């Protein structure tokens, strides 16, 4: 029984097409990544899934039935823009939000305390929300989403602004929920996070679905044509004819090999070439990252008129890859 099923959904705001012919399903016990740059239609899609807006055509089913508002009691939604009542005490706030989701006051109280303990913020319980740090507020919001034990958990950029320790804490909590059979939908433009977490993904760009499927299948359908190399010394091996394009950093390069039937051998000979001139501390042959796949897909999908060089800036992507190792 799929938890979410979108069938050819379309949504137009005035003149702007927000979502066009979008279909995907989310199964219980899986993590689903809804990916795309800002403004690609992620939030519009989510809003239709939880009945804030209604699709112009197509259908949305939750829990194997056409959407009705009553189902919202089984859905937890963490919006991208965090929203809490600043002046309210944390516990009052959680109890209020829990009650709105149909819990009794005492249930909500009990579960709030349980979750605050689990996420290590018991000291915040009696404080006013505005007195908390941003990361703590985010945890409160996270708890508010899960208080009523939803079967479908929708998280829009859940880790933005969290330090790695807290982000891991939340990721572990989400992994537990998946193990319990809940479906988790992740919406993000941080492809690197999704790569580690998600079972299935849907890539959308300008409202169109450009790629979907299971993470492993998608990855394995791409040739292992990427080489990551850490080196010291002469970099003349980067002129090797097997290289199609590369990104250079200091002491590190990301290489895309030319398409060829003997890709694995090409990589080996590239390594041999590099060893002759430089000292190699790390050499890795791998599939393209999700980010690479995404850029490639978007380029394919773009009409010729819009063609030309597609930069990261155009896709409105954070350039965090520049900072990695």
């Amino acid at each position, binding site marked *: 029984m799929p938890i979410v099923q979108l069938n050819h959904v379309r949504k137009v705001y005035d003149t702007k097409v927000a979502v066009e012919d979008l279909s995907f399903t989310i199964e219980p016990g899986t993590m689903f990544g809804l990916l795309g740059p800002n403004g690609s239609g992620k939030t519009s899609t989510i809003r239709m899934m939880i009945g*804030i807006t209604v699709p112009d055509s197509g259908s949305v089913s939750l829990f194997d039935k056409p959407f009705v508002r009553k189902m919202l009691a089984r859905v937890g939604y963490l*919006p*991208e*823009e965090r*929203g809490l009542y600043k002046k309210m005490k944390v516990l009052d706030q959680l109890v209020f*939000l829990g009650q709105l989701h149909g819990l009794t006051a005492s249930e909500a109280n009990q579960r709030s305390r349980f979750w605050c303990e689990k996420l290590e913020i018991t000291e915040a319980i009696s404080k006013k929300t505005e007195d908390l740090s941003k990361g703590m507020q985010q945890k409160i*919001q996270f708890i508010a989403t899960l208080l009523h034990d939803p079967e479908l958990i929708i998280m829009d950029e859940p880790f933005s602004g969290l330090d790695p320790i807290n982000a891991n804490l939340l990721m572990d909590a989400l992994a537990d929920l998946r193990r319990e059979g809940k479906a988790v939908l992740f919406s993000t433009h941080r492809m690197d996070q999704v790569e580690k977490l998600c079972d299935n993904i849907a890539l959308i760009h300008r409202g169109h679905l450009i790629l979907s499927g299971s993470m492993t299948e998608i990855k394995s359908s791409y040739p292992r044509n990427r080489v990551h190399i850490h080196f010291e010394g002469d970099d003349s091996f980067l002129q090797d004819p097997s290289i199609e394009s590369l990104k250079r950093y200091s002491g590190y390069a990301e290489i895309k090999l030319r398409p060829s039937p003997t890709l694995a051998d090409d990589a080996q000979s590239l390594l041999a070439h590099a060893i002759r001139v430089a000292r190699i501390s790390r050499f890795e042959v791998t599939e393209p990252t999700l980010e690479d796949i995404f850029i490639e897909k978007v380029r394919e999908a773009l009409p010729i008129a819009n063609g030309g060089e597609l930069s990261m800036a155009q896709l409105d992507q954070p350039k965090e890859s520049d900072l990695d190792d």
Partner: protein
Amino acid sequence: MIRVWLIARREYLERIRTRGFIITTVMIPLIMAGFIFGSIFLSSKASFVTEIAIVSSDTQLALDLKSELQQGQGGSLTQPSLDPRKPTIIVDAMAVAPDTKAILDQEIDSDDLDGYLWITPAATPGARPTFTFTPRSSTGETSIKDTLAAALSTVLLREQLAHRGIVAADANTMLQPVEIVAAKGSTHEDRESAEVSVGVLFFLMYLVIMLYGMNVARSVIEEKTSRIFEVMLATVRPEAMMAGKILGVGSVGLSQVGIWLAVALLLSGRSLVLHLGGDDIHLALTAPQIIFFFVYFILGYLFYSSIAAAFGAMTNSEHELQQLNMFLVMPLIFCFLTLGTVLLTPDSTLSRVLALIPPFTPLLMYLRVSLGHPAPWEIALSILLTSASIYGIVWVTSRIYRIGVLMYGKRPNLPEILRWLKYS
């Protein structure tokens, strides 16, 4: 329904606990009391003691006029009346001397005298003498002149009557002003008390509707900027949110007014009698006046706060809201401007028509119900019309609200808002 209740309760509890609520609950009556007592105090301080001199070669005329002016005051000279409308006049009658005019002018210049009346005897016997009044300044000139003119005509009339052989006592009886005693209805004092009490409630209603209407708009904007809507709309319909908010904020307003009224009624025994203009003005409210106050207050609040909610949903900041607030405040201010008319002539055609126009009904019909005699059908019609327009407004604003709360960035223009109404 239970969610509307939850939202309203949260709104109510969060607001009523704030320091702002306690401060306004205490401060607004204090400020109003300050205004009332302040104006009484000022008017009594600015004791209208007017000192004038009467200059006449006919000493008898001057003395008659003096006694008439002083008797006309109906009180002793030593105790100035508190009523600003009846200035105490201290009169000094004097005969003409060559330098009189110069002396008097000098006294006026040095503020010792407020004016003098110069009586020039008539050139021909039997004709009237000429009266010239020289005031110190233009202030209060007309009222003194009127007083003088009235006193003079009485004096002259009495003189004429005496000439024709009528005894002074008879003349006095004849000159006694006619007094009409109201056979039915309220006395002057009761009426005045009612006017002041109702006026105070009118002002309260005006203030609280405006205050809490704006509160609704402001809190919508606050929830918009803090993005709480995103969270809330995942479980609650926007209509329920709007209803909960309006009811919650409104209950705070009702509680506040309730506290004020309860305290006022507790204090208003014989102990709290304001000495206003020598008349006993007390908080004189009848049960229907209080009931209708709440009925019209609720109607007015619903009318204006629903509009305010839509304004909040349409804008992104308080600054933008202020530009729209004009539309909210204008009708209320208009009611305030017509207060005098409706207060004095609550049953005139103008008052009757104005009180039936929905934006004005809550304030003006309340005045009519309290002070005039509207027909029962008029009351029913006013409630019906206002309720119907509230229904219409809520229909429109909930649509604007539903879409507006998810719109950030630029403020929508009118065609866009009209298009929102068509979305289902």
